[in-house]
């Protein structure tokens, strides 16, 4: 078998596809994650997403190798040799898988090596790696089975296209919250940044792993039951593989069917595999800057702290030192700003962590709006006109447009609110600061009309 494998490795088609695989890797979430914050959960998820490109290609390569006998009309000759069809063609499949796994290992090594070098918190998640590798093998086995059963020059491209479409459907099912879709290796259902804050089990990758391992066996097993596949031993192996594969794939689907997605915590939970403590907050020591109002982020996001602090500084510099205003802001996966024990917790705009450089645009404006509203009024429904005007004034002074997105209410500010906001923002900064110092308490405790603002 080793001799055949060595020969198949030498003559396999996959090495010719490596440049294509590299391009697909780079245009996939893998490529984008390299330029994003070095966060282990994010990188683990990106690795799985690479399957959208790599899976179909490796399935096509396996189908091409497996359909070789029919294409080259060697069946007549090869049937007269001692090896049965199953053990004759498996080395070709193994060679395809080994080349693909070598590429995937190199890609994983690069991504995880880079992350180990730059990540500020956490450790490598290995379960997504195992699930990715298992799914990759499942594509290889499925491609091999297709190629072995069908003949023709177009089997390989059609297999690749079919695998891609299947992945798109499975990924869509998963990302739209259909429980059985959780077996899909692609499709975002969890939030890798939110998941930093909560203890997460290995539920989801474990289910994906079980399902993929089942698919490998289900793809290879029936091939051993065909007429010229081999002798009684091969048939027995085929029966065992088919039975265990069907059971494993079925178990994976069933477990996924019981799963649910906890969007708030960015994790998926499979109750049967859930261990005690899953979903509980993970203790950590935040990384903080030394601004007038301290900005704190999760230590895994430490690299982006200067950019985050710079984004909110136009707001914090205006409000620092005011009586009753928190002296520290924590970015956390909360729904809205709230003050607890003198610390303001604000929602972290996690999409900002997928980029490098200064936080700009909508993410920055949203961050400043949450910060301004939170520092002034904590948890606030945004309905009071005077408070609206106060928040907008701070944002206008910070250089942001006073549009509807700045307020936690539906609809834009009324003309009276806008006029009051512009009046307050137009005051010299010391005067505005002084006005807030004297009026913040009444603003928080009573309902003032907008014209009460200077």
């Amino acid at each position, binding site marked *: 078998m*080793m*001799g*055949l494998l060595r*020969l198949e490795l*030498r*003559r396999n088609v996959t090495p010719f596809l490596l440049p294509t695989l590299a391009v697909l890797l780079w245009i996939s979430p893998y490529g984008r994650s390299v330029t994003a914050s070095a966060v282990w959960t994010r990188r683990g998820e990106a690795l799985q997403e690479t399957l959208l490109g790599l899976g179909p290609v490796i399935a096509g390569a396996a189908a091409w190798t497996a359909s*070789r*006998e029919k294409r*080259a*009309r*060697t*069946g*007549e*000759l*090869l*049937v*007269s*040799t*001692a*090896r049965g069809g199953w053990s*004759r063609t498996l080395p070709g499949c193994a060679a395809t898988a080994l080349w693909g796994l070598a590429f995937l290992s190199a890609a994983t090594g690069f991504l995880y090596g880079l992350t180990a070098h730059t990540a500020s918190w956490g450790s490598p998640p290995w379960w997504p790696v195992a699930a990715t590798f298992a799914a990759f093998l499942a594509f290889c086995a499925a491609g091999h089975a297709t190629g072995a059963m069908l003949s023709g020059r177009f089997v390989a491209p059609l297999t690749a296209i079919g695998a891609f479409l299947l992945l798109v459907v499975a990924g869509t099912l998963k990302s739209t919250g259909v429980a059985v879709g959780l077996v899909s290796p692609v499709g975002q259902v969890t939030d890798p940044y939110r998941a930093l804050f909560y203890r997460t089990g290995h539920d989801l990758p474990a289910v994906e792993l079980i399902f993929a391992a089942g698919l490998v066996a289900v793809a290879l097993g029936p091939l051993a039951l065909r007429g010229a596949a*081999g*002798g*009684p031993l091969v048939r027995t192996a085929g029966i065992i593989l088919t039975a265990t594969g069907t059971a494993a794939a079925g178990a994976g689907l069933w477990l996924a069917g019981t799963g649910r997605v906890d969007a708030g915590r960015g994790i998926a939970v499979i109750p049967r595999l859930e261990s005690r403590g899953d979903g509980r907050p993970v203790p950590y020591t935040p990384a903080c800057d030394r601004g007038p109002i301290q900005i704190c982020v999760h230590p895994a996001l430490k690299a982006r702290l200067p950019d985050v602090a710079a984004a909110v500084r136009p707001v914090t510099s205006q409000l620092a030192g005011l009586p009753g205003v928190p002296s520290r802001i924590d970015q956390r996966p909360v729904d809205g700003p709230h003050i607890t024990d003198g610390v303001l917790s604000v929602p972290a705009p996690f999409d900002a962590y997928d980029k490098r450089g200064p936080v700009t645009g909508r993410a920055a404006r949203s961050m400043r709006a949450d910060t301004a509203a939170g520092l002034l009024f904590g948890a606030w429904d945004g309905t009071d006109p005077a408070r609206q005007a106060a928040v907008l004034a701070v944002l206008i002074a910070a250089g942001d447009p006073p549009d509807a997105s700045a307020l936690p209410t539906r609809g834009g500010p009324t003309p009276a609110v806008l006029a009051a906001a512009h009046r307050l923002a137009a005051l010299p900064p010391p005067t505005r600061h002084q006005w807030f110092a004297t009026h913040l308490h009444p603003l928080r405790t009573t309902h003032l009309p907008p014209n009460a603002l200077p």
Partner: protein
Amino acid sequence: MNVETRGLTRSFRRRQAVAGVDLRIGPGVYGLLGPNGAGKTSLLRVLATVIPPSAGDLRLLGRDPAGHAERREIRRRLGYLPQDLGYYSGFTVVEFVEYIALLKDMPRARVPRAVASAVEDVGLGNRARSKLRTLSGGMLRRVGIAQAIVNEPELLLLDEPTAGLDPEQRVQFRTLMRRMGERATVIVSTHLVEDVGAACDQVGLMSDGRLVFTGTPAELSARGAGTGIGDAPLERGYSAVLAETRT
């Protein structure tokens, strides 16, 4: 006897391609002659265990190919050159022959020397590292012969082995056949009666799935004395026997 058949029949739907053939062949070179559609290729395919017989008894190398273990053992000791040799165009000559040697379960340690020897025997030593796609039709036929003899088979089945070979190569090939026939059973199906005359100890003539003549080339030649059509004695014997069969 390396090949023993009794009432061997192979049908494709209603048509009997091989119709009750009885054979007992030991070591030596056995030529199988016959017109197109006579059943030569079907008989060779049955003997190569590619297709099972529809009826009759078959024993190869003293074993019954109906059982998996025995069939596997036969295939280890078998060499087969099909009429239409498929090949992997990206493989080199050595790789293709090595591939078949490995599929024949040859011990790995023996494979490199056996491959080199087989490639030399067919005169392709200087093209051993060439990709198959770069070879001419005659060279590919020789690759086919090399893969058939790589395991030093006890039963060698060759279907039209000299098709596409030039006269010099055919002479070399006959020498190779005679050498193989010293210790193995070589059954060669061909339309070229001069190959049979030059290399075969025994000859069988098939017509409509039946074996209508078995004997030595000299006996076949004698059957055509003064009657048959053809330029050579064997050709005259060949056409005389066929004419008798048809009448």
